[in-house]
């Protein structure tokens, strides 16, 4: 389910123009520029809306992405490392985002910590390829996933705030 707020957020992310994957040596650098442009805009918008929640960066050829995402729950900030590879079939298929440290803690995850997206995501991506990019993946995939899973994991005690963890061990 894509809620109204998510739809509004996504509609503000600029769409991409270049239909090229990492195997397309000539056009991939252009696509990569567009990915960064869209991501920069999205992060700036999030900051302006006081809802800054992730950072991403890639290796030089843009095939491997790593970063952090965070979620504020009851005034505490929970931060997670995230990573994914750009599949050779990108942008026709979306990358599989992984949050490795949560692997094994929720059933809404495939092995290796890859997040399990809702059944609405694949059709949505297919309908909008190749104009959706990584910023859209964050907004429609990881964002909603964190919003559902993190509070649940916290309530079950499977995710503990780092400060609290330290206090508990002292």
């Amino acid at each position: 389910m894509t809620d109204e707020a998510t739809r509004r957020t996504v509609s503000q992310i600029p769409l991409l123009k270049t239909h090229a994957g990492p195997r397309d040596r000539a056009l991939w650098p252009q696509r990569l520029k567009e990915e960064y442009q869209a991501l920069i805009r999205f992060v700036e918008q999030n900051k302006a809306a006081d809802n800054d929640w992730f950072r991403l960066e890639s290796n030089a050829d843009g095939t491997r992405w790593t970063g952090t995402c965070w979620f504020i729950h009851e005034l505490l900030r929970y931060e997670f490392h995230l990573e994914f590879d750009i599949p050779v079939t990108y942008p026709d298929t979306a990358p599989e985002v992984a949050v490795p440290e949560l692997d094994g803690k929720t059933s809404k995850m495939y092995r290796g910590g890859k997040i399990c997206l809702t059944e609405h995501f694949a059709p949505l991506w297919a309908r909008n390829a190749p104009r959706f990019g990584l910023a859209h993946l964050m907004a429609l995939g990881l964002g909603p996933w964190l919003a559902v899973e993190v509070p649940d994991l916290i309530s079950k005690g499977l995710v503990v705030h780092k400060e609290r963890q330290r206090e508990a061990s002292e």
Partner: protein
Amino acid sequence: MATVEELKLRIRELENELIKCKQKQCAVEDALQRPKIDIMSAEVVDSNPYSRLMALKRMGIVDDYEKIRTFTVAVVGVGGVGSVTAEMLTRCGIGKLLLFDYDKVELANMNRLFFQPHQAGLSKVEAAEHTLRNINPDVSFETHNYNITTMENFTHFMDRISHGGLEEGKPVDLVLSCVDNFEARMAINTACNELGQIWVESGVSENAVSGHIQLINPGETACFACAPPLVVAANIDEKTLKREGVCAASLPTTMGVVAGILVQNVLKYLLKFGTVSYYLGYNAMQDFFPTMAMKANPQCNDRYCRKQQEEYKKKVAEQPKVEVVKVEEEVVHEDNEWGIELVSEVTEAELQAATGTVPDLPEGITVAYTIPAEVKESGETVEETEQSLEDLMAQMRKL
């Protein structure tokens, strides 16, 4: 208390003991493993592992069963379906198997067939090769423990498909997709379209009660990108299907059935008997097996698919007497190159607007989703920029 020297000595002793144990274990395994068999015999004796297979020849079902030993099959994904597929082909005496999987055996896989608890932690391809080699030492194995969808691995994957045949340098005869995700299927599709490699797609639904196999001959039949994925209609009210708290379910039965119809189709195709299915579905709820064939879509997004179609047309024109596949349905692929469509399930009307035409398919088969035809409001696109990629990367880091 023991000194460091004493402990070092003890470690060396234990290491030697371990080596001896391993050697003993290997000797036992070698003794248990039957020697290789040069020629498949039809002789019915309890020591001949091929007698019942060779009987297919005597009964007139298969013309030349021994030919199985000349074929190479690549199995991509050695999970619930792939492992059983590989075992069936091994027992049938296939010439060579190439196995691709990046995953490890986990205890969570034990609701499926083939792997055993003591193999937990081993790579799936390594564990599978060990078991399969014991079952049939006549089969050659080549294993690759990696994810085929990343840049580097994909290049290697393409190379092994086109050169990994029984006779090194020759292409494999068939690629079988036993993967569990869309990205990997699309990667196999991309490779096979570029190489003109015939392959069979297989899949089990996330609710574990349906599955399918689909034979794809690039240029002739619809490729995986020609239409949205074809799935078996579940006949389950979506509203009653609870997805909360789970990703996917799986049953050894459904996976076994799908592996069975997959390998059956492979044997029929390779050994030329019976009718080869182009699409065969399995609906476990109603026990219904819908079939169909679909020709390639001239507007397919994959340019190599379109190129293969041109070549196929030429080939058919040159050999007018070649029997052409009976094609029952053609999917109209809606052109949506610049259409932006944000879907939500908020209202029925909205859902209707966001849904494209469902192609005319036989009863029991449908598409996983549709692509709407009409172009709605065009969103804002990224602007032209003077900034270099390095500038943008630096800007992103500074945010």
